C-alpha cells in the first residue's frame, strides 16, 4: 500500500502536505519490515529540524531504528497517542499512526523526496 497523494523518503517516511504544513509518518512497508512496534520517541514540539536529520526513534521487537525528518521545519505537534499505543503505527501507518507535523516548511525541498511511483520502485513493487 503506497498512497498516491503522499511524498516519500528512501528511509521509508511519508509526508502529507496540508495547508502549508507537513504531516509525517512511516510507511506500511516500513512497519511490516519492523514488526510489532513497541516504542516511539518523537521530536519535541518547537524543535527545528533539518531535512533528513535524525529526529526520533522507533523500536520494534526486532530492532531500533531512527526516524528522519523528510523536510526542514519546526515541529508543530506530535502524536502523543503513540506513547501509550505504539501499535497504531502497525495498524494504521498512514492514519492514526502518524508521527509529527511540521510547519514553516520549504516547498523547494520537496524535489528531494520520492513520488509514490518512485517509492514503489524502491521497495520492489510491493503494493
Amino acid at each position, binding site marked *: 500500500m503506497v498512497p498516491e497523494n503522499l511524498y516519500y523518503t528512501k528511509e521509508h517516511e511519508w509526508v502529507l502536505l496540508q495547508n502549508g504544513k507537513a504531516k509525517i509518518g512511516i510507511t506500511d512497508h516500513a512497519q511490516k*519490515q519492523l514488526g*510489532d512496534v*513497541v*516504542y516511539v520517541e518523537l521530536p519535541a514540539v518547537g524543535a527545528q529540524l533539518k531535512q533528513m536529520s*535524525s529526529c526520533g526513534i522507533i523500536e520494534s521487537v526486532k*530492532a531500533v*531504528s531512527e526516524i528522519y525528518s523528510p523536510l526542514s521545519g519546526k515541529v508543530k505537534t506530535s502524536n502523543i497517542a503513540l506513547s501509550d499505543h*505504539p501499535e497504531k503505527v502497525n495498524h494504521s501507518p498512514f492514519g492514526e499512526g502518524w508521527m509529527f507535523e511540521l510547519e514553516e516548511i520549504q516547498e523547494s525541498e520537496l524535489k528531494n523526496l520520492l513520488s509514490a511511483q518512485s517509492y514503489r520502485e524502491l521497495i520492489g513493487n510491493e503494493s
Partner: protein
Amino acid sequence: MPEPLIFEKSSPERKGYLFPSLDVPIFENSLSSEAAREDLPLPELSELDVVRHFTRLSQENFSIDTHFYPLGSCTMKYNPKIHDELASLSGFSDLHPFQPEDQVQGALEIMFQLQNLLAEITGMDSISLEPAAGAHGEFTGLLMVQAYFKDKKESRRQVLVPDSSHGTNPATAAMAGYEVVQIPSNSRGGVELESLKQSLSENVAALMLTNPNTLGLFDENILEITRLVHEKGGILYYDGANLNPILGIARPGDFGFDVVHVNLHKTFTIPHGGGGPGAGPVGVKKFLEPYLPVPIVKKKKNSGQEWYYLDDHYPKSIGKIKAYYGNFLHLVRGLAYILSQGAEGLKRIAELSVLNANYMKEALKKYYDLPYDRMCQHEFVLSAKKQKAYGVKASDIAKRLLDYGFHPPTIYFPLIVEEALMIEPTETESREMLDKFIRAMIQIAEEAEKNPSLVKGAPYTTPISRVDEVLAARKPNLCWC
C-alpha cells in the same frame, strides 16, 4: 514443566539459617518507623530449596559449555578451563589494588606483557588495559580523539560510521557528544567510497570501522579508506569486535588505524556475559599516547633489577575511566591464552575461523538467500527471504534451531540485510559439529516450505516455548507482585 520462580516456592516462616541464641543486649532499632518496611516480600526458603532451584536453572542454560553457539559478531569460542584455574590462583585472586608495588611485581609483569602483546597483535604503540567492555573501550577511544583535537585547537563535530556498523559505534559517538553521520555500504558490502568522500571534511573527527565488518566481509578498499580519512586530518577508529579472523595475519595498525579496541571476551577467550565483566583494552598510535587513561604499566631497571611500576604521569590524560586497573583476572586469562597459542597458534585460529565460516556458507547458500556471495571471514550473513515467502521469519528459524540443540545465530543484524541470520562458528568447533548444524538448517528450510506452521510454533523442547515479546516490551512488568 518449567522451574517456578523462587517467589512461588516461598513458604511463610521457612528459613535457610539458624542463628545462635542472643547473648548480647538487644540493640534498639534507631530507624524511624517509616524507614523500616514491613511488607518486603523476600522469598522464604530452606537452603536445600535454594540449591535445587538454582541448580535446576543452571541446567536449563544454553551455554558454550553445553551447546554449539554460532552467535554472529560475538565470537562464542570455547573458553579453556585452564584460564579459570590460573585466574583463581591466590597470588592473583587475593591481591588488593592498594598493595605496594614491591608486593605485586608479578601482577604488574602480567599487565606489562599483555600490553606489549596486544600492541604487537594490533600494530599499535601503546595499550591501556582499563576499559571493562568493548563499548567502554570505544568510549575511551573517542574521549582520546576529543582530547587530541582539543589540544590541537580544532573543533570537529562529526563521527562517521558505516550503515553496517555495530550499534555501539553510533551510540558511543553520540554519547561522546558527536553528530553521527552514516555512510552507506556498496554492493560488495564494503564502505561506499563516493559517499565517504562526500561526507569527509575538516569537521570529521573520526571514522569508526569494523574490518572485517558485520557482514563478515573484509573491506578491500581499507587502505584507500584510511588514506582518505587521514587526508582530511581525521582519526581512524578500529572496532576490534571482528579481530579473530585476522589474528597474526593482518594488523589494524598497518591498515592505518590510529585507535583500536579489542574484546578479550571475544577474541581472547575470557567468558562472555552472564552479567560478568568483560575487558576491552584500547590501543593507540604514538601521537595519541599522551591522552591514554592512567595508569600505564611500565618497566625500568631498579639497581640492576627489572622493576614494574604504574605510571600515571600523563598530564594530558583523559583521566581514569575505571576504578583501579581494569578487570585484572580477565587480563590473566587473556595473557594465558595468547601465550599458550603463541604466534603460530594465533594465526591458526584466524585461518580455522575463516575456513569454518566459509565451509558453512557454501553448504547453506543453496537453501538460504546469501545477499553478499563472496569469500567471507569469520562469519557470514544469510537472509530468510526465501522462507519468508512461506510465512517463516528469521526469528522462527532461530527458535526452531533450539529444538535441534543449537543456540540460534544473531538475527535481524546487521540492519542492512532483510531477515538476517548472522552465523559465526568460530575455530573451536569440529567439522562434525558444523555438519550437524548444516543438516539442521537444511531440514528447517525444508520444514519452512512443507510445514511452515511447525517452524512458526517452535520451540517445542525448551522449558518455555514462545514468550509474548510484544507484550513484554510494551507493558513490561518486572515485579513479582
